[in-house]
């Protein structure tokens, strides 16, 4: 089955972000979305550490480590960009002022439950960061992830086995095989990777897909 590359998934997410949206991109794969938004579609990128108007990475040698993103990487500031303290930054999330957040995930359940902060394995050191605030705060929470684990197990599941980040918060899932919507009726297939086969897709998905 042909799979979308990470950059192809990022391009699909970017395509679906509306003009003028306030968007938070999570650490990891979602960060790639910024590269695909294009100059024509003006969006405001929010980062949890107190900045709106995050721009591209600085040129080598021009890094300023007082200007970083949530992943602690140096970034730049777009014209119009602003800084604010942490309580305001999370008020923006919790208060429903962000249009879209894009997060990575270990698992997403058919009811929109999200697991992305902790494997729960003995000895694993838990770290949650802003994941729980983002998941329940943004108007829309989208997930960007591989369709299955490295071992081939479905990551779209009937019920999350990993510790939850938020309940019923995910509305859309972008994977390397498909774009899925979480609906009251179930998980709806919106599109498949080129040449993907529905039966094969269904076989590596933990819940029945609607189409």
């Amino acid at each position, binding site marked *: 089955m042909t799979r979308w590359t990470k950059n192809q998934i990022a391009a699909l997410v970017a395509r679906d972000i509306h003009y003028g949206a306030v968007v938070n991109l999570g650490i990891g794969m979602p960060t790639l979305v910024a590269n695909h938004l294009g100059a024509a579609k003006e969006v405001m990128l929010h*980062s*949890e*550490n*107190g*900045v709106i108007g995050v721009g591209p990475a600085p040129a080598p*040698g*021009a*890094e*300023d*480590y*007082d*200007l*970083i993103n949530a992943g*602690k990487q140096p970034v730049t*500031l777009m014209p119009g960009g602003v*800084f*604010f*303290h*942490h*309580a305001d*930054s*999370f*008020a923006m*999330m*919790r208060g429903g002022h962000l249009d879209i957040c894009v997060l990575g995930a270990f698992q997403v359940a058919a009811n929109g439950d999200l697991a992305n902060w*902790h494997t729960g394995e003995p*000895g694993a*050191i*838990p*770290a*949650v*960061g*802003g*994941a*729980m*605030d983002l998941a*329940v*705060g943004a108007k829309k929470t989208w997930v960007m992830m591989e369709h299955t684990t490295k071992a081939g197990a479905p990551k779209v599941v009937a019920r999350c086995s990993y*510790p*939850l*980040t*938020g*309940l019923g918060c995910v509305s859309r899932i972008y994977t390397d095989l498909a774009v899925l919507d979480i609906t009251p009726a179930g998980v709806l297939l919106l599109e498949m990777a080129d040449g993907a086969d529905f039966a094969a897709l269904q076989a590596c998905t933990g819940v029945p897909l609607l189409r």
Partner: protein
Amino acid sequence: MIDKFVASTAEAVAGVRDGAQVMIGGFGTAGLPNELIDALLAQGAKELVIVNNNAGNGDSGLAALLAAGRVRKIICSFPRQADSWHFDQLYRSGKIELELVPQGNLAERIRAAGAGIGGFFTPTGYGTDLARGKETRLIDGRWMVLESPIHADLALIKAERGDRWGNLCYRMTARNFGPIMAMAAKLTVASVHEIVELGALDPEAVVTPGLFVQRVVKIPRAATGAGGFKTTT
């Protein structure tokens, strides 16, 4: 004359007692007041409870305080990082207590303390392991979790510029937790890179009004290794 300037970092952290609850600003290394942490290390207080977003990076600053066995408990949102080996080792050997808090709850609990709020209901964390045992309530159709304020005996924060009243301006994303931690502590110590005459800060641009700050110490920018700033020349 009101004068909150102190001459040295040692003077800035004088009087911290064993068992103190200490907030330390910074997100990663941006806004982390490394020189003040070094002074706290030299000052000697132990059994500390530290409130910081992370749990130390590399071998300096907060990580050095942890490595020296001076921290009993840490309250943070994101302890595990690629270079958090001192925390990892202490945690795995049961030598440090961890209270893991979603980052927005951490920020709001700190803000609540500074604002005199006794607690608040938030949707963050509802139904997760991090809300286990906490009071919940259905408010306007949405389940919420009761969270309590986090106070501190001492806050160590880093700002860019300050005057003798303690008014502070910050620099870019190094602002992060500084303004709210300044509100939540009995004693707030700010390091600044630039000291200015009273009246020189634009009153419209002051982020932390001086009443939240008790001591200000100047740290030359060149000496700020882990403060986040790197010169481009």
